[in-house]
């Protein structure tokens, strides 16, 4: 197969070199064009969002709770607080589990069959649609309790964070040079302490970025919250009651027929996207500074 494919261009030398060059030029041009066309919707979305969002963003948005349809004013204070509560719970569940699994993969499992199986399952879990996660948690928590709750919302987002945190933690730990581990063990440090205080600490910047990446990913999730956190028109911080969340509120307002609510949806989308892009950019900055590369 390989030898045959390599012989082709030589045989094709009967074809005029100019045609070949032109063909190459055309394809290169198409690739550039594709890149430009791909960047275009991104820029369009961001600019439009900025335009709509900035004009409708005001102080009330951050300090007031929603008003009934038809009245003007109101904000999303309850949704911002609600998102905070749900995401905090999700981080409490997802981050320790993910980091633990990542440590297992990097330090103990290596490339054993068990390790590969965990890796594979994590990747597959990562691809399970968020709405399916929502249904499973609904069946697990909401149905027996017979009411929607912030707790269920936190659990569903926490579960969704696990695979991302696991894989990034593992990758970051693998970058830590072996000499550092050997030095620690050679000085008589117990293995568990060497992992926690030497390896994990060396890779901590990378692990934190992995956690933020997972956080940013679930921060914008709407589908799994539809029937776990459910949404709430009023201020609530109780884990046992339905709670509002920023993406949920954006969805409800976006599909509503009121202009005032559309305005608020744009403002919410802007806030959400600024939060997410800021964390993603921070992640890239930390990674590109190469805190880990310096250690090798």
């Amino acid at each position, binding site marked *: 197969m390989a030898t045959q494919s390599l012989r082709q261009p030589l045989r094709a030398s009967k074809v005029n070199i100019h045609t070949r060059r032109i063909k190459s030029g055309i394809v290169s041009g198409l690739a550039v064009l594709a*890149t430009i066309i791909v960047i275009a919707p991104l820029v369009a979305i961001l600019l439009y969002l900025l335009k709509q969002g900035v004009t409708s963003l005001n102080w009330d948005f951050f300090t007031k709770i929603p008003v009934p349809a038809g009245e003007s004013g109101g904000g999303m204070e309850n949704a911002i607080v609600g998102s905070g509560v749900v995401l905090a719970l999700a981080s409490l569940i997802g981050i320790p589990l993910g980091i633990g699994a990542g440590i*297992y993969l990097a330090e103990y499992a290596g490339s054993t069959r068990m390790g590969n199986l965990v890796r594979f399952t994590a990747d597959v879990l990562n691809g399970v649609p968020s709405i399916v996660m929502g249904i499973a948690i609904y069946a*697990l928590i909401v149905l027996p309790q017979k009411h929607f709750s912030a707790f269920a919302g936190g659990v569903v987002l926490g579960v969704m964070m696990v695979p991302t945190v696991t894989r990034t933690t593992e990758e970051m730990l693998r970058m830590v040079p072996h000499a550092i581990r050997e030095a620690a063990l050679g000085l008589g440090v117990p293995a568990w302490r060497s992992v926690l205080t030497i390896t994990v600490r060396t890779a901590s910047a990378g692990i934190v970025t992995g956690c933020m990446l997972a956080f940013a990913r679930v921060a914008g999730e709407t589908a799994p919250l539809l029937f776990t956190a459910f949404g709430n028109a009023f201020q609530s911080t109780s884990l046992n009651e339905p709670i509002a969340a920023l993406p949920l509120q954006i969805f409800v307002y976006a599909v509503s027929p009121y202009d005032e609510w559309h305005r608020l949806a744009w403002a919410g989308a802007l806030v959400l996207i600024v939060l997410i892009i800021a964390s993603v950019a921070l992640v890239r900055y930390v990674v590109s500074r190469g805190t880990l590369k310096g250690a090798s």
Partner: protein
Amino acid sequence: MTQPAKIFVSESSTPPPDAKQPVKPSVVRTFLRGRGNSAIADGTFKALVFLCALSIFGIVILIAWELISRSHLTLAKFGLGFFFRSAWDPVNNDFGAFPFIYGTLVSSFLALLISVPFALGVAIFLTEMCPKWLRAPLSFLTELLAAIPSVVYGLWAIFVLIPLLRDYVNPKLMFTLGWTGFFTGPNAGYSMLAAGVVLAIMILPIISSLAREVMTSVPMVQREGVLALGATRWEMIRIGVLRNARIGIVGAIILGLGRALGETMAVTMVIGNRPEIVKSFLAPGYTMASVLANEFSEATGDMYLSALIEIGLALFLVTIVVNACARMLVWAVTRGAPARVA
């Protein structure tokens, strides 16, 4: 270079005082005792992280179990026929998932059709042609596309994309391609086509970043060899890169398909949500994920709930199979051990 030295000194010189190693009494005894103590601690720690790893299996099994046990009503009543029936009548407890499956498949394949050429173009540009200084900002921009939440895409699609399609693109499509039957009928904007376009934008970064990863892993020697035989740049890319990376690229595309199948919010906001099977892409449709999003929280009656959960189960199984295939294909290329994985 100062970094490692600092880490080494500060980290490794602190543990001994903490670890209580008075070397004076008997070196052998302290060594043995230290070993005994840490053996328990080490074992506990290992067991703890192992449990964390097992929790990933636990989650998958729990999801599967919940979905299966909660959908047994419709599983028992309709069997496999559930997926081939077109009825959707909650009042008379008559359910069939075919319109939703059709909508999911059509919108996802439409999305692939639109996004694959662009994604591959971007991947080729970024790995083979892009000047170095432009590479980082461009890849950051395409990754940003992946970071935008689904609901924001939906919001943008409702207010920008749909009017654009309805007023400018659809009339042209109806005029030029109306004879195919795929672009006919009332032009409402909320349609299968709108869902396909939004999905295409959303899965593009996934496909292109994975394709890029796969293409980067093709050894430089391949490119140099083909160029040395007198190939032009396109011939080099086609013979030296694409041919070697093709398995992984297929994997990337399948992974994009998996994402498109399960995508919920943006699709729900633009597809029109009507459980009908119409040949025209300009007509509204419904997908498995969006019927769940719309009807789940108001499902009354055990049968209705069971039908919806069975749709969720089907979605779960399909995406697991799709993702597993894709992962194996991508791993086969990037790990360099294709025979064993496959």
